[in-house]
């Protein structure tokens, strides 16, 4: 059969591989969750007349503001290709330590009774230090981020319990409550803060070298190194910012509730990851946008709100919530069309 066939001279109809139609869906992928949010609003309105009231929706936003800051932090850390489970402990421990250092022992303080205005900077500093310590273990000791931050989750939670002695802290300085308590132009200040930080995050991650380097490091750390990016510095910075954001989230939550519970943040990390992944952040790094993550937070918040309004039996609440989150993941997997890693 070895007959030489002459080269095919027919006009080429096959487009060279890599050519795509001019319409770019990539731009719309970010908006994939918008229809889901609309559907949830409609479903909520049909199920319960109080759902679409300003009061309820503002409540949703305010309740989600602390979670959204954790998601903002986790999204940036995931994009950089790392992991931080300890955020859910930082959100409780940072405010507890700060408050315990300034209140008298009668209010479960540590006895130091430092000036009250120190509470805010102390809280943020604690978050930064926890992030920096995570970075130290992950980068200098080259440990897996997953297991390091799991260990830190437990350790920091333990510190929270130890420092507070298992008590809720009530005598919170006014300066500390301010951010979570005030409203501005009819919206809780905490919602403005979350929104503003998300906008800053989106701008930095889209239009700044420092932000784009997160994607480079998470996408291919060796290529980023070879392009002159100081990858360790980037990862460390992101972990520290993550800790600070978690501490800030703790402040907002304290202001909203008027006290710090002994279990503040407990179990939140699951919601954080669920929101991030529903929002299209890849667990393998290098992929996803903060806008997507924000949509993920809203989807999750609306689902939870609808569940509460429909007065599901409290004992079944978690099971239903879990199932709905899994469904949301399946749906987001189908709408984005790509396998989740």
């Amino acid at each position, binding site marked *: *059969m*070895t*007959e*030489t*066939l*002459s*080269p*095919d001279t027919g006009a*080429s*109809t*096959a*487009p*060279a*591989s*890599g*050519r*795509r*139609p*001019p319409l*770019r869906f*990539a731009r719309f992928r970010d908006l994939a969750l918008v229809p889901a949010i609309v559907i949830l609003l409609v479903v909520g309105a049909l199920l319960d007349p109080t759902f679409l009231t300003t009061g309820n929706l503002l409540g949703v936003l305010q309740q989600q503001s602390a979670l959204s800051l954790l998601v903002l932090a986790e999204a940036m850390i995931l994009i950089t290709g790392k992991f931080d489970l300890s955020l859910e402990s930082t959100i409780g421990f940072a405010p507890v330590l700060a408050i315990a250092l300034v209140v008298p022992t009668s209010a479960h303080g540590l006895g130091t009774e430092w000036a009250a205005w120190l509470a805010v900077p102390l809280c943020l500093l604690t978050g930064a230090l926890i992030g920096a310590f995570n970075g130290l273990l992950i980068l200098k000791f080259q440990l897996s981020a997953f297991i390091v931050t799991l260990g830190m989750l437990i350790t920091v939670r333990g510190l929270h319990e130890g420092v507070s002695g298992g008590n809720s802290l009530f005598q919170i300085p006014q300066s500390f409550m301010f951010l979570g308590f005030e409203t501005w132009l009819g919206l809780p200040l905490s919602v403005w803060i979350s929104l503003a930080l998300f906008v800053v995050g989106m701008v930095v991650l889209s*239009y*700044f*070298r*420092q932000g*784009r*380097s997160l*994607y*480079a490091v998470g*996408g*291919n750390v*060796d*290529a*980023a*190194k*070879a*392009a*002159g*990016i*100081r990858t360790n510095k980037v990862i460390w910075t992101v972990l520290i910012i993550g800790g600070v954001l978690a501490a800030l989230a703790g402040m907002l939550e304290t202001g909203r509730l008027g006290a710090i519970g002994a279990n503040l943040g407990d179990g939140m990390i699951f919601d954080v990851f669920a929101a991030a992944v529903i929002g299209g952040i890849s667990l393998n790094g*290098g*992929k996803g946008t903060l806008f997507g993550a924000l949509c993920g937070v809203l989807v999750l918040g609306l689902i939870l709100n609808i569940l509460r309004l429909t007065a599901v039996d409290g004992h079944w609440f978690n099971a239903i919530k879990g199932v709905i989150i899994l469904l949301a993941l399946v749906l987001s997997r189908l709408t984005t069309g790509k396998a989740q890693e």
Partner: protein
Amino acid sequence: MMSAVNHPAASEGLAAVARNVTKRYGRTVALDDVGIEIKDGESHALVGRNGAGKSTLVSILTGLQAADSGEVSFFGKPAPALSDREGWRRNVACVYQRSTIMPALSVAENLFINRQGKRLISWSKMRRQAGELLEPFGVDVDVNTPASDLTVEQRQLVEIARALSVGARFIILDEPTAQLDGPAIERLFERLRALQDTGITFMFISHHLEEIYEVCQTVTVFRDARHILTAPVAELGRAELVDAMTGEPGGLTVPGAADRPDVSQDSEVALNVENLTGDSFSDVSLRIRRGEVIGFAGSASSGKHQLAETVYGLRKPSSGVIEVDGRKVKPGSVLDALKHGIGCVPRDRHHQGLVLGLSIAENAAMTVMNKLGPAGLVPPKQLAGVGSKAIESYDIVTSGADQPVSDLSGGNQQKVVMARALASDPKVLVLINPTAGVDVKSKESLLGVVDRVARTGTAVIVVSDELDDLRVCDRVLVMFHGEVAHEFGRDWTEQDLVAAIEGVSE
């Protein structure tokens, strides 16, 4: 078009046949009504440029993907269902460029993965059988060692041995020589010929046309998702083969150094390396003038890659000095190398060259992100500008600067890496295997870029295993065991150079 016109009794004596196979990915046609017939016991080469459809055909012939239409058969029987992995494994095996060995498992377990038997695993029996299996291949390793310790050559032999032990009589080799040095390639070819004598059939994919003439009997050329020709290797000249691959007469025109004017002796020294010692090389000194292209040749163990990576700061030297334009570069710092005007195409584009998920523009601009706007601002316009300039200057085939690099063919990806290295207008350009795994046309255009930047006064280092890459060089230094052993001018001959690389010249 190449269906068996003069063989009505079709599949007699044919190891593998694909007929009228079409495969689309979305709007992209990856294979357009192609066919291939591989005779029992032959070595059949499949060649074509990146994006010609070779990889798609391999995944269809190995049952990893189903064709949209068309048929595949082995030894006269239709191919098994896609879900019948066992059935496919008995018919065909493929040694990919990327390993299918599980690095953490022992060699023995890799050989018997998923067929350890129905009862409890007898480790001693498995080890004995593994030893017996590997014996004829001369793989001199303990079967208990983890597979990650194997050399590339041993790894390939283990994969071939595993395929044969499953019962496959047809083996696809996808660029098996890409990561091997000269002697290892020779040993592999000897092994292939011996296996062929025992009746094993091979399909061989390579960008090195010389290798096809050395080991194959028949060659099939694909271009732009179509079958172009199938012919006995002996009847097809090299020029005709290249013409068929590129679709244009004229063949490969690699720019030679002789076309450039001589680099004058009083031209400034751009890069000065003094007594540099580091990983796998020692006491290397060299001076490269502006506009000069220096080649580094040598075997895989010669230290040439390590030397180049040290110049760019990817590795830290233990002693010695690197200067650009007379100013010292901080050792082991890529950032400082970039600041002083050194650009680099790293050894492996997947490993260090590209962030696959990001766009062309973003990859190309990665080394100059801090120069696009104030305070690290990256204005989208400027970013897109870097991207479209790269696409234009290095003629990257793409739908636009915002296309992710993962969508591009290998040759075009490599052009993006080149764009990244040149984005900062470096005074010194370090290229490590710049044309590895790219097709002839892309090779031509990449080497054209080297010629172009040298004319504008950039000093270039080309480290390569491919002699074609070295033709563009004004001087070629041959490294042997970590030292510069020989130096050639522009007028080197292949024989002299190869002899020096192998360390057999006097």
